């Protein structure tokens, strides 16, 4: 059997599969379904300085081969994440976890990372500068190279753990933003966050989602994600975490060929709660089919 392990920013993953933030909670709900220690790691629910309810409902709209969400970073705030959520996770997950954090100012980002830095189980920070669902924050940091670099520098000062900046696809030049983050000290780049989308109800003539617009994810966005991972991988020298519509072991291989060191799975978890376990179980078969001995050999293999 081929080898599935990869090295993400100095930490070994048994396999490259990472449930994406916002689709896996803090892990313990999925641990009731299967042993989540089979995962490479997972990225926990986006955490902010203060607790947030998020946006009004409806927050979800179905699309062809995908969905739109406008949850709006609902989370209990960093203090409760540390005191209530992470203690439940320790009991069911014995690997390093990826801490996904977001903010509304540069100071917010630094505050939240600094608070979480002492948590031993956190292996990486995934810094979300790309949430399309919150006004006056989130994505506004990820649509401008200088603002993204400023957030990167601020969190760099408060942690020695690897920092992975999560980028928005809702930009003209994602390569410029990725390069700015690399120069500012990022250890990795993850992409893509959701595409800004919208649905309208024909009967009411109103948007399906209360917040009008939201983040479009699912298999429909996979080709966009592959293209952007490929572009960024050819422009930076730090590892890429690829995501966007990944649903099968074949998608994982394609994402890695495009340049991803590890691969996040998002919306698929919401449709099939066993999606990540199923992909991991299926990877050896697909590797054999395409003559892949070591998954790490194919990272960025597509010229």
């Amino acid at each position: 059997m081929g080898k599935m392990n990869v090295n993400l920013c100095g930490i070994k993953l048994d396999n490259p599969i990472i449930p994406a933030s916002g689709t896996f909670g803090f892990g313990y709900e999925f641990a009731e379904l299967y042993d989540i220690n089979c995962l490479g790691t997972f990225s926990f629910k986006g955490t902010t300085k203060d607790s947030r309810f998020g946006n009004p409902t409806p927050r979800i709209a179905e699309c062809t081969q995908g969905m739109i969400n406008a949850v709006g970073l609902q989370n209990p705030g960093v203090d409760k994440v540390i005191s209530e959520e992470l203690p439940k996770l320790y009991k069911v997950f014995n690997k390093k976890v990826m801490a996904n954090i977001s903010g509304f100012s540069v100071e917010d980002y630094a505050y939240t990372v600094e608070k979480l830095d002492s948590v031993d189980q956190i292996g990486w920070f995934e810094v979300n500068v790309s949430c399309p669902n919150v006004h006056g924050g989130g994505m506004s940091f990820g649509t401008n190279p200088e603002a993204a670099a400023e957030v990167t520098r601020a969190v760099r000062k408060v942690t020695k753990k690897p920092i992975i900046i999560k980028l928005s696809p809702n930009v003209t030049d994602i390569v410029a933003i990725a390069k700015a983050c690399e120069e500012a000290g990022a250890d990795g780049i993850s992409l893509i966050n959701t595409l800004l989308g919208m649905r309208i109800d024909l009967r009411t003539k109103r948007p399906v989602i209360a917040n009008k617009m939201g983040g479009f994810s699912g298999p429909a966005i996979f080709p966009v994600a592959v293209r952007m991972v490929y572009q960024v991988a050819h422009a930076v020298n730090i590892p890429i975490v690829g995501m966007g519509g990944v649903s099968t072991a074949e998608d994982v291989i394609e994402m890695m060929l495009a340049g991803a060191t590890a691969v996040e799975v998002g919306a698929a978890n919401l449709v099939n709660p066993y999606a990540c376990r199923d992909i991991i179980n299926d990877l050896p078969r697909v590797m054999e089919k395409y003559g892949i001995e070591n998954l790490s050999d194919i990272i960025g293999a597509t010229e």
Partner: protein
Amino acid sequence: MKQSIFTIIENRPLTDCVWLMRMSGDTSDITAAGQFVNIQLDGLYLRRPISVFDCEDGILSIIYKVVGKGTEQMTTLPVGTPLDVLTGLGNGYNLEKVGKKPLLVGGGVGVPPLYYLAKKLIACGKRPEIVVGFNTAQEIFGVEFFEEIGCKVTVTTVDGSRGVKGFVTNALDAIDYDYVCTCGPEPMLKALYRATEAKGQYSFEERMGCGFGACMGCSCKTVTGYKRICKDGPILEKEEILWEK
């Protein structure tokens, strides 16, 4: 929660747009009345959450209203079709908290889960009375199911074409009850909440992403904090409810 394959054994209309589907499969995770199942359909990305109408010995029954692509597709599925179903979702009604004289109030497609609840209450020695509300006589379904298990049923219709004219709240004065369990559209729940002093359990509906607590798509605010309708609900106790809209 459990993911398994069910096989359709019956699928027929009860009214113009309300259908009954029975399927066989592993029902071991369906532990309470008021829970729902989430059904995967061909070509549709998200599953369809539907409340449990009845469940026994590996037979799951649901009653669904045809409201869109998913439920339209369901009406076309013949006996023998396999369906990928997540079972055991949601908290369900808490039988221990139900008073001595329970009243079950259902509106429209909120009626089905109350049948399974009535059976469970009867099994623990209680005699639930039923009020079901519809817009018109043509929309009425399910009354005979309750009558078959010995429940007294009061029907209300908005246009007065059968039973008490008006809303479910117009039927309350004539009934002796000390506790309410209800499921229906939010305006009905709100009217009932205001019309009765009795304690109770209210089942809410919200557009869902996953249906099992992962995506936070269906969150609501309650007196006791944020809750996910799919995981911490759909049943809320009356004291917890915060009306926002």
